[in-house]
């Protein structure tokens, strides 16, 4: 593994690592919604600076964190061109009936900015919060829904397991793709169709092992007498400390400031 992967938790000690998972998740949710409310350049830059400051506070390696964006490169590119070509406005260049506009360029860039920020904030959350903490926080946040018979704990369990296996899956893809490369497989040449087909030797083994792992995990849970129904007790209970309140206030103030700036500019 040569990069920090999205969804990867790194057990370190930083102010952000120590925060209550509920606070972190709430803040992350807010920070992920904010880019959609920000439309001006200064606002966007300020928001990016806020996220960068948080990354510094988490003692996260900035370059590696930025590189997690690579995983959504194609999606971002697609979004960019979609907005680039479909936004009406002042024409920049026009050829073959396809008009490219200044507004299109701006709209495309905005979409890319939003996607990147989403990925970075999500990576920052998982980087500083262990899967167990995430699950605990989710359970606490969505707990009230149990009143209306929503299977909160089951959903959280599914989510935790999925998160837990993201790094495993990436590691496996890396090994299998190396093994196939050693057999002369080529994933980088040919047209789109050939490239897509060249992925079959990677994805078939990955699916086979994922299915086998799911079965083994189910057996292991069964063997330990796991049942979904009972309410569990916790070794560590969540409690909001002073730092958590400060963090809430800081993020809230920063968010309001950015939104306010948007309004008055």
């Amino acid at each position, binding site marked *: *593994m*040569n*990069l*920090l992967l999205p969804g990867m938790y*790194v057990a*370190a000690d930083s102010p952000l690592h120590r925060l209550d998972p509920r606070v972190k998740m709430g803040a992350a949710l807010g920070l992920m919604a904010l880019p959609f409310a920000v439309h001006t350049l200064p606002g966007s830059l300020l928001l990016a600076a806020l996220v960068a400051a948080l990354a510094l506070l988490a003692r996260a*390696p900035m*370059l*590696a964190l930025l590189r997690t964006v690579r995983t959504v490169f194609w999606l971002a590119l697609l979004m960019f061109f979609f907005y680039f070509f479909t936004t009406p406005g002042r024409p920049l260049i026009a050829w073959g009936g396809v008009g490219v506009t200044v507004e299109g360029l701006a709209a495309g860039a905005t979409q890319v900015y939003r996607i990147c920020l989403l990925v970075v904030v999500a990576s920052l959350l998982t980087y500083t919060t262990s899967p167990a903490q995430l699950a605990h926080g989710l359970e606490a946040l969505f707990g009230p829904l149990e009143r209306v018979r929503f299977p909160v704990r089951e959903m959280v369990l599914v989510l935790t397991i999925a998160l837990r296996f993201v790094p495993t899956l990436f590691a496996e893809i890396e*090994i*299998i793709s*190396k*093994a*196939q*490369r*050693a*057999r*002369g*497989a*080529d994933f980088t040449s040919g047209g789109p169709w050939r490239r897509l087909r060249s992925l*079959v*030797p*990677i994805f*078939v*083994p990955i699916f*086979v*092992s994922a299915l086998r792992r799911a079965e083994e995990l189910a057996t292991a849970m069964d063997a330990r007498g796991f049942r979904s129904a009972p309410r569990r007790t916790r070794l560590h209970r969540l409690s909001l400390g002073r730092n958590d309140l400060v963090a809430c206030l800081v993020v809230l103030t920063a968010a309001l400031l950015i939104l306010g700036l948007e309004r008055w500019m």
Partner: protein
Amino acid sequence: MLIRIENLRYIYAPGTPLARTALDGVSLELHPGERVGIVGQTGSGKSTLAQQIAGLLAPTAGRVLLDGTAAYERTAAARAQRRRIGLAFQHPEQQIFEQTVFKEVAFGPRNLGLAEAEVAERVQWALEMVGLDPAVFIERVPFALSGGEMRRVALAGILAMRPDVLILDEPTAGLDPRGRWELLGRVGSWQAETGMTLILISHHLDEVARLAERVVLLARGRVAADGAAGQVLGDSQLLHSAGLAAPQPLALLEALRAAGWPVRTDRLLPEQVAAEIGQAWRQRSRS
């Protein structure tokens, strides 16, 4: 193929809190037709070294030269050299993806751009080499085979590329004792038949003693020893300092010696140990 490794360093996930030095200045020269065992504790850098030789990882510093061409390059020349190297990862059966054994084994040869007739011939040959009757197995679904058979299909897929260098990373992991020795016997005969360079990575020293003529001992990403198999594997102190236990025959001979028997301890194979004990016994009964 001459493999020259010069001052090779490799760091995983550099610049992150997970950074870990896997290879820390390794220099080696592996000659054509040699049978080399690479041994070391888990995490000593064995598998990383294998991937470096196969050109699957970019060195952090230093280089790997395959007949003079850097292994990790995006040039056609480097690709041509890499294709002469066959690498079987640990648990190679996990890379199986095709619907029939034939297609699975043919994947490598087809990637080499060989004609279909040649591909078919190589699949036949490779399946025979791993001890699977082509007439029986060729049309079977690999996923329906037993674990040991799948392992052999995967190895056939690599042999069918007729590599000049074959790297096996823990080839016997997870096999039962009989499957182990049978596979090792086959590996020995592949090497004898094709004259390829064989690089066997393992922490089972008994297996390495059986197959390798030269042994490289890795410890913490460095070469701790490099020499004739008897010399490296016969040095229990050296092995111990690298976190490995001496092979069984050596342990037995050392115990006999400590008990006052006149035996030499640089014997590594069971039959050699038997001969040594017999000789010591005769010598004692004469005096």
